[in-house]
């Protein structure tokens, strides 16, 4: 069970219609690969974020599968076109079953 998992997102507050905006996301997470062993030689079980999605007004923007080689505190930066005002919903899926979501509004003029 991963502790202190906090999602963070940066989306511009406003944009013009059809503009391509840059979105930055980061979730603090140990991303334990499952390959390491502890001091006693026991395998440390894998515990990673295995999937990340971004939706805009119900439409999927990005759906990414994360693998064990992805670093601690995975940072993802991507671009999206915003046709209208609405809400971005970001979702991270943890190996332990936890789901973390974050929402950001954007106003399009």
């Amino acid at each position, binding site marked *: 069970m991963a502790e*202190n998992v*906090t999602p963070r997102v*940066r989306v511009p507050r406003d944009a013009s219609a059809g503009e391509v905006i840059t979105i*930055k996301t*980061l979730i*603090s997470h140990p991303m334990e690969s499952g390959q390491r062993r502890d001091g006693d030689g026991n395998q440390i079980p894998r515990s990673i974020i295995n999937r990340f999605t971004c939706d805009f007004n119900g439409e999927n923007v990005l759906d990414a599968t994360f693998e064990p080689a992805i*670093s601690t*505190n995975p*940072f993802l930066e991507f671009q999206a076109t915003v046709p209208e005002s609405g809400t971005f919903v970001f979702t991270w899926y943890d190996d332990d079953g936890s789901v973390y979501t974050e929402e950001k509004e954007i106003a399009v003029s």
Partner: protein
Amino acid sequence: MKETMLKSAVCGMALLALPLTASAQEAELVINGEIEVTTEAPAADHMDYIRTVRSGWTFRTGETQALQMDDFDNPGMLYVEQAMSVWNTAEGEAGESCASCHGAPEDMADVRPTLPKWNEEAGEVWTAEMYINDCRENRMQAEAWDWNSQPMRNMTALLSSVSRGMPIDVQIDGPARETWELGKEIYYTRYGQLELSCANCHEDNYDNLIRADHLSQGQSNGFPTYRLKNANIVSLHNRFRGCIRDTRGEPFALGSPEFIALELYVASRGLGLDVEGPAVRN
């Protein structure tokens, strides 16, 4: 023969180094588009061999530099955030938190630039770690943190983060002078099987390549630093230890009087620069 070979090798490195850093030096460090940080300045009067002091930031590649220019991109800020929650949490038998005496961390902005400094009561030079543990043990009646423990590094990073952009302001005259002299002596003493002093790398050869990396001036204004190599916050004394280890010497202990003196002396070499910690470095 050996000497000429060595000389030509050093020349070669200097030539190689020039085009790589030229662009980096021109860039200016502005954090979050608002905090302007001085990364290059005339050296303090006590500096005999360096005319211009440069922050470690100016020796890094554009990509690494960019990481420090936005708190969202700076991985060190994650640890600052962790320290923020500790700051507000009461701990120990006195039922006090950092916030109950000190208010917001921003109210402590004038602290980091002056550290390490002479503590009149204790009769010695104190670093941030010592002040923090004094608070924890005596005011909070909580357990002291280890010098290099995660919460200690986080808390020093928080203290530094609120002072970013403020000029280094350590006192080297008066009662701290003796400690400062000791630090200077250590700085110029050759240690280890390789017989290297701090100055051999960070004064005589900064900007040259050491293996595949540029030697910096070894300034401490960016500490505690987020090192990409460690993927964590690194304390100054840990960095000192790493340097002495690399000379194949036996390092002083973290928190030892020798490292505290060295911390004061190295801080004074950065007079003119601004606080940057948590900086992002290799």
